């Protein structure tokens, strides 16, 4: 019984982390129609930067949450720069854009190795969240519960942003029909930069939020990117609700797969992605944005 309870709690928390990672990925995919293969790198850079701020790289040690926000902002700027300087030159050539993101992910991985070395960095849990609460047989690790809370808050905030703001309306228009959006006077190119920066920032934030659980190590990017891909393919590109549901589903598959089918853990993780792509390319939860 403890087994099922512990793994269920863990699946939901991992799903929350995956949502933070893949929401931005999904927005970018929906709007620009490309899988951003640097998304895992952004996650890793966010975690590395955040862990460095925690260690006092700015001359003073930052609070965990402040470090997470600052590193997210920095990664957002990096993402926006990448869109402006590289992807913009290849506007309209989706394949070339994908290849560029692939090349950049090589470069980022090696830059991180240069900057932080190959030794994994463990990030301590923020103050006050180190323990756990026991309710009957179930154990709820505090920090992991906080991750779920953060994911829900972000889901609501993103939903409000998309639904209630002008920017959100423009993004929705761009996802639905970029040509038409341009015709009605939306500066789609600027929108691309904003969304790319936003998506990268979310990934960077997720990286720091995930760091106390996963630690930060070379190859973290390659571990997380395929997970984001699975989530977005299952959920449908550009769909916020799809990302959320997809994240929870993948959280469960990932955790229970490792525990119950260790030999086939990755098979059961990626097979749904293949099946969805082959049989239902719009995603399990429809192709709409919300």
């Amino acid at each position: 019984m403890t087994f099922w309870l512990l793994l269920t709690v863990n699946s939901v928390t991992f799903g929350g982390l995956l949502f933070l990672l893949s929401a931005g990925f999904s927005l970018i995919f929906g709007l620009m129609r490309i899988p951003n293969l640097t998304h895992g790198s952004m996650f890793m850079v966010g975690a590395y930067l955040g862990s460095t701020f925690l260690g006092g790289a700015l001359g003073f040690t930052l609070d965990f949450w402040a470090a997470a926000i600052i590193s997210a902002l920095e990664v957002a700027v990096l993402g926006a720069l990448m869109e402006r300087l590289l992807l913009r030159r290849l506007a309209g050539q989706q394949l070339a854009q994908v290849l560029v993101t692939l090349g950049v992910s090589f470069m980022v991985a090696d830059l991180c190795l240069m900057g932080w070395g190959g030794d994994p960095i463990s990030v301590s849990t923020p103050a006050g969240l180190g323990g756990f609460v026991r309710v009957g047989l179930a154990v709820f690790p505090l920090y992991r519960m906080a991750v779920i809370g953060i994911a829900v808050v972000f889901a609501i905030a993103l939903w409000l942003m998309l639904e209630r703001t002008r920017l959100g309306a423009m993004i929705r228009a761009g996802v639905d029909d970029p040509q038409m959006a341009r015709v009605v006077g939306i500066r789609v190119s600027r929108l691309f930069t904003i969304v790319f920066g936003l998506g990268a920032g979310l990934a960077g934030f997720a990286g720091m939020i995930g760091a106390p659980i996963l630690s930060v190590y070379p190859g973290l990017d390659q571990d997380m990117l395929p997970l984001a891909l699975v989530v977005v393919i299952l959920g449908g590109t550009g769909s916020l609700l799809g990302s959320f549901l997809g994240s929870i589903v993948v959280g469960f598959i990932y955790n229970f797969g490792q525990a119950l089918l260790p030999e086939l853990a990755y098979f059961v993780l990626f097979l749904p992605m293949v099946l969805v792509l082959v049989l239902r390319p719009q995603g399990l939860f429809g192709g709409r944005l919300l």
Partner: protein
Amino acid sequence: MTGRRIAIVVAIIGLVIVPYVITEVYYVNIASQILLYAIFALGLNVLVGYAGLVSLGHAGLFGVASYAVAYLLAAGFGHAVAIPAAIGIGLLATAVFAALALRASGISFIMITLALGEIIWGLAYRWISVTHGDNGINVTTRPAPFGLPLSSARGFYDATLIIFLLAVASSAIFVRSPLGAALCGTRDQPRRMNALGFHVWMIRFMAFMFSGLLTSISGILFVYYNEFISPQALALTASAEGLLMVISGGAGTLLGPVVGAALVVIVKNVVSGLRFTVLSPMGFADLVKFVLNGLFQHWNFLLGAIFVAIVVFMPEGLVPGSVRLARAAWRTANRSKSARPAAAAPPAPVAEQKR
């Protein structure tokens, strides 16, 4: 086209005498690696270059054949059984890949192949009872066809060279065949090809199978070269490196993937071992050397940067790109000779390759 024939003969002679010119075992081995990766890149190029389908899962196919041959050898079968069986298993996996991935094209094709590649990698990594996971599988012998042992670096190079030449020749024949022409048609105008009565799916399927054949062969050579196989050889990075070879050299050309394979292998192995001596009170030259040392050591960064630069500035790849630049330079030189220096040379015809 006699000039072309002469070039081909010269190239073959050059490749044959490589182990006599470079006698050091280490560099002969590097040359073998270049050839075996060139076979891999040629296989991937059939899809990327001629069919316009970008696969990010080819390392998975490569791995199926690798693991098949390693598993069979470890189980006690001889080379004569293991090699054909591994090719067969590789082709079977290719057929499954193709049947699933060819439901889509463009970005979706990339995603499906990526997921399939990850599945194969995941099995290699975690299906311990068959693959031994991280421990990998050791292969202790290389075959000795016709009594010629491949255990020495030179013997292995010669065998790889023969297979490489066969791979190039068969690729050339494939590309020039009606099937190859039809394949290019499906790349550029799939709908029109369909309307003209071509079976687009079947053409692509055949191309995929040919690609899978070359990939499987390179996978088997890889196992014999390393005498070892482990999941790292199947990772997403390996697929990406294959793509890097094809795109950087020039997709849709025969020479391009070979040049790309050489570029990647050399950057990875040779350049990463170069080291300038830096004196401790640094002068400017020492600073430059210091930076170069850093770049050499970080070949992954270097490869990524080369890749990005090629995609952005020379999208057709190094081989066609340099040919274009050379032609443009030649034309400019000729124009300026013909007593019209004021007239600027027209911009070089940029290859409009909408991939």
